[in-house]
């Protein structure tokens, strides 16, 4: 590409800030720099000057700030920032958004479980037909804060929605297994936030009447690639239609997370009327049980390929950031 075009393209990119210099923030920064044609790094913000993430940002030539959101607001670059990604913690996000919400033109993408704004899962939220079928209202243009649910939610809720668009889902359950090495201290100290946020989003975005989420940390060496399993209990429906719907949504997710795959063909079981299951909050239910076994291989940006949980979160956030400015 001729030099003047490179400059022109660079001008067209919108500047973003990332708050939070842990695994997620750092991986997102690397993704933006390596893969985005719409966004570019304006500032990388942490609170620990010694953190590996801030050191990495400096080495990559990114402007940094080690005094959190308060420091960022005093920097000249702040005026040019259009999107702020928050990869801190739920508690810190409340503070950060409090500082930012007066700047009405700036958009905030929340990667913490704080969930002030609506949940967004690109494969569902960007698909108007699918959204309508499940009955989710979302007006991205007029929303200043959106929430990215959880890594496990990003991996599994598209599958719940894929069943929901075919038939009524009474219950959606997900199991996310991640490598111990890919779970940072923030995740570990707040494991309930994962369970609760993901469960709620299975209902609100996946369209299930009742959601349940389970997370498992596996310390095996070499670390195991992220695995996710989705179980739904729905009304009986055409199995081929469900299978096709799931394959379609997997292809949608693959557009922004290339390492996302069905690890096995979709499995079906009948839950017969004379032998129903007893689900807390739902009662006795029969119907169709659908089991979907997924694998998420990471892009290997900040952490190695096993950290699919990191990759799906940051890839989805990047897709949302690009959508918000585009």
């Amino acid at each position, binding site marked *: 590409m001729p030099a003047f075009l490179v400059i022109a393209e660079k001008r067209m990119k919108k500047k973003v800030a990332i708050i939070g210099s842990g695994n997620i923030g750092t991986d997102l920064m690397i993704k933006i720099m390596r893969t985005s044609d719409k966004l570019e790094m304006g500032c990388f913000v942490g609170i620990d000057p010694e953190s590996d993430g801030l050191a990495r940002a400096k080495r990559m030539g990114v402007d940094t700030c080690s005094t959190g959101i308060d420091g960022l607001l005093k920097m000249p670059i702040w005026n040019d920032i259009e999107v702020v990604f928050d990869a801190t913690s739920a508690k810190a996000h409340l503070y950060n958004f409090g500082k930012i919400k007066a700047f009405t033109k700036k958009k905030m993408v929340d990667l913490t479980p704080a969930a002030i704004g609506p949940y967004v899962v690109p494969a569902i939220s960007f698909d108007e037909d699918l959204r309508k079928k499940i009955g989710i209202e979302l007006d991205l243009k007029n929303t200043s804060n959106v929430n990215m649910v959880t890594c496990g939610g990003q991996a599994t809720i598209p599958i719940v929605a894929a069943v929901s668009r075919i038939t009524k889902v009474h219950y959606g*359950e997900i*199991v996310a*297994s991640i490598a*111990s090495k890919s779970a940072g*201290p923030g995740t*570990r*100290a*707040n*494991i*309930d936030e*994962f*369970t*609760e946020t993901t469960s709620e989003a299975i209902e609100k975005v996946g369209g299930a009447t009742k959601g*349940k989420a*389970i*997370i*498992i*940390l*596996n*310390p*095996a060496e070499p670390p*195991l690639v992220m*695995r996710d*399993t989705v*179980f739904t*209990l729905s009304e009986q429906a055409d199995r081929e239609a469900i299978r096709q719907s799931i394959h379609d949504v997997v292809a949608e997710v693959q557009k922004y997370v290339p390492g996302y795959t069905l*690890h*096995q*063909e979709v*499995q079906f079981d009948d839950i017969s009327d004379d032998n129903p*299951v*007893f*689900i*807390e909050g739902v009662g006795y239910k029969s119907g169709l*049980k659908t*089991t979907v*076994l997924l694998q998420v291989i990471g892009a290997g940006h900040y952490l190695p390929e096993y950290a699919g949980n990191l990759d799906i979160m940051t890839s989805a956030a990047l897709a949302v950031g690009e959508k918000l400015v585009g």
Partner: protein
Amino acid sequence: MSERKIYIQDVTLRDGMHAIRHQYDKKQLKDLAISLDRAGVDAIEISHGDGLNGGSFNYGFGAHTDWDWLEGVSEQLNHSVLTTLLLPGIGTIKDLKRAHDLGVKSVRIATHCTEADVSKQHIEAAKDLGMDVGGFLMMAHMNEPTKLAEQAKLMESYGADCVYVTDSAGALMMDGVADRIKAFKDVLNSDTEIGIHCHHNLSLGVANTIVAMQHGATRLDASLAGMGAGAGNCPLEVLVAVLNKMGIEHNSNLDQLMNLADDVIRPLQERPVRVDRETLSLGYAGVYSSFLLHSERAAQKYGLKTFEILQELGNRKMVGGQEDMIVDVALDMLKKK
């Protein structure tokens, strides 16, 4: 150090859930809790086999909710402490509070043997509620003694009153138990208790419990007729008989427990809880005991051998809670055929 009295915790109504797919009838469970109390057992653990809120496709839905099982039990107990189990990642602090409201006074917070730090918020919350708290380091055979003791120390630092060597796979031998308890003794404060939870997959449930006690464990887990996951737990009536023969002081009544084990519990077992090819495979391959019935079901559905599925789960280093990977393993084995 003054000699602490042995504290026996029954797990028939929690680990025993695994043996009958979490299907205890509410009244049956309450009657058993009362009988165990009258037999002098120090603590009775009640919840879904996988802890509070464990009811799921992944682990099996219970016949009742945890709240239905727990309701009205604490009022009936004269001696026994009502306890429950919580696995962070499955149950939450909200569940813990609900159990506490139902009269649960003691809880064990369980994590894989290398992941103690995920228990911090739950142990602290339980202490805030004024509960007695045990830290439960599962699959203890997968971590070497000094490393396991570091994890125990973390749980102690969060506020745990007791930390357990939890041999979920029934894979530890007597030396392995002794080394782990000794490592705990070396690092834990003298007022922190040490507990032992065994599975009988290598027929060492009682022997390992006794070895742990001889090295300083004071809280011993056991269940009637061994009712529990895999080949079951340390059988309570046998343990009590051995303690009697050893002249160890405790509160439990042997005759009552023997009668309960044979007259009430054994008839409930759909699949005998015993050491056989399948349950021996669990201990031999170091696999989470709760995988047993799920693997038997997968083997039946896909025309495979249970012990081969279990061995493959061991090869893949699956940990407690990854029951979803059983079908995955089965489907991979089918592809190879």
